[in-house]
């Protein structure tokens, strides 16, 4: 049973389709990267999964359960969480409050333990739990954003450009954390500009162009494919 199955989805923000019959799957425990040039619809796929854009055609299933067209606050309860590329924190809330908001739908009271886990993963957040999130550095904000999404203990994490705007040092750290999160059994679907780096630790990768599937293979195979390298990985 696939964790996530996107089946020939077409749709967009308005009546104009951006995605054209896009299909992809994420198996349990996998890291899957979506790469492609600007405007290929990479982020749009994620928004479609999370019910943030209109899906005109096709089907999206999470653990064999149809989630096409559900509202984000319904989808989040099913065990998939989403970290947008930008505007992904609550800037005027403290770090701790940001994490609490991530667990808003959680009623079982496991909040303290989950927060402890997030602090173990991102120790700098523990030191700054009472600070206003908007005053943190870019890398720390990205930690808050990912920490917020982890508060529901999801089975699948959608990460839109997790390394965007970060310094090389932080990029390395964030990628290490992603591998660590994945090691605990969380499936990861990731969109990345930093394609070479992302593919190097992805189990599989999809290449999108013009809102449609172009190529699909294991991360390693895509990395060594000369055509892919020349066209999408900068030679």
């Amino acid at each position: 049973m696939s964790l996530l199955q996107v089946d020939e989805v077409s749709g967009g923000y308005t009546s104009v389709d951006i995605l054209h019959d896009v299909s992809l799957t994420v198996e349990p425990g996998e890291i899957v990267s979506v790469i492609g040039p600007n405007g290929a619809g990479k982020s749009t796929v994620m928004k479609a999964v999370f019910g943030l854009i209109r899906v005109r055609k096709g089907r999206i299933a999470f653990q064999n359960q149809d989630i096409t067209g559900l509202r984000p606050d319904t989808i989040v309860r099913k065990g998939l969480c989403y970290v947008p590329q930008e505007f992904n924190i609550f800037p005027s809330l403290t770090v701790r409050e940001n994490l609490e908001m991530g667990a808003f739908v959680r009623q079982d009271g496991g909040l303290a333990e989950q927060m402890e886990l997030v602090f173990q993963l991102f120790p700098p957040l523990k030191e700054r739990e009472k600070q206003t999130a908007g005053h943190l550095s870019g890398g720390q904000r990205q930690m808050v954003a990912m920490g917020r999404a982890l508060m529901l203990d999801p089975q699948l994490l959608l990460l839109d450009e997790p390394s965007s705007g970060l310094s090389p040092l932080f990029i390395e750290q964030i990628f290490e954390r992603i591998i660590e999160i994945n090691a605990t059994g969380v499936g990861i679907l990731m969109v990345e500009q930093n394609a070479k780096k992302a593919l190097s630790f992805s189990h599989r990768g999809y290449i999108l162009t013009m809102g449609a599937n172009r190529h699909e293979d294991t991360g390693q195979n895509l990395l060594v494919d000369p055509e892919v390298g020349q066209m999408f990985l900068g030679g």
Partner: protein
Amino acid sequence: MAEILQLIIYGIVLGSIITLGAIGVSMIFGILRFAHFAHGDIMTLGAYLALIGVGPLSLPMLGVFPLAVVATGLIAAGIDRLIYRHLRSSSPIIMLISSVGTALMLRSLIQLIWGPDNKIYTQGISMPYTYADLQIKPEQITIVLGTVALVTLLHLFLHQTRMGKAMRAMSDNMNLARISGINTERVIFWAWIIAAGLGAAGGIFLGIDTRLNPIMGWRLLLPVFAAAILGGIGSYYGAILGGIVIGISQELSTLFISPAYKPAIAFGIMVLMLIFRPTGIMGGQK
């Protein structure tokens, strides 16, 4: 000197009332992204609902106050269900115009029920406390202390409760709030209860300080918006600061110009603020 201090005292009293309105305007803007022009008439409504209690039913104001506040909150949440909710996906301008319509309906309704004449809560004059040429009426002390109490309660709500934090989160980043699973309609419901409840408190205080008439709130709308913009719209603490500054400026202006021009001072401050620092003192939303 004594005259200036006296005006500052009056300014703080007026500023307290403006603050209670401005917090609501700021909160609704922060969460629903539209300027709620019916807020002044919501304040009037609160004042008249309290009049039912202290007038015909002759109950003590202390008991009537919370009832009128809650009732006004519920009515505002009802108006939202009936009108604004259906317009949420349309542009903020449509929401704004519909709130002007709501304002007119509320005011006409109040005028139909209670008539256009001035009303007062209680007969008789209360003796002011005097200290070295400065005077303050007991009711005015109640207004200022009542505002301090309500603002403290609001602060505790926003920082200590789950719903309060969700409200701040939503006014920070609506999209992320939805992605996090926050039920935005429930947050909106509570925002109306609190915004209109505080507005009602302001309306009742204005009725206590002066008298009630159907346009009391509409007249207050300009200073209320000026306060919210001065403080930075969407920022609750900015609204408090803005309210007090506008209140004191309006009263101090009577030293130089006719009291009839008081609202012009609020308007002037608002325009200057919009030109030179549109995000307000505390840096709210655009």
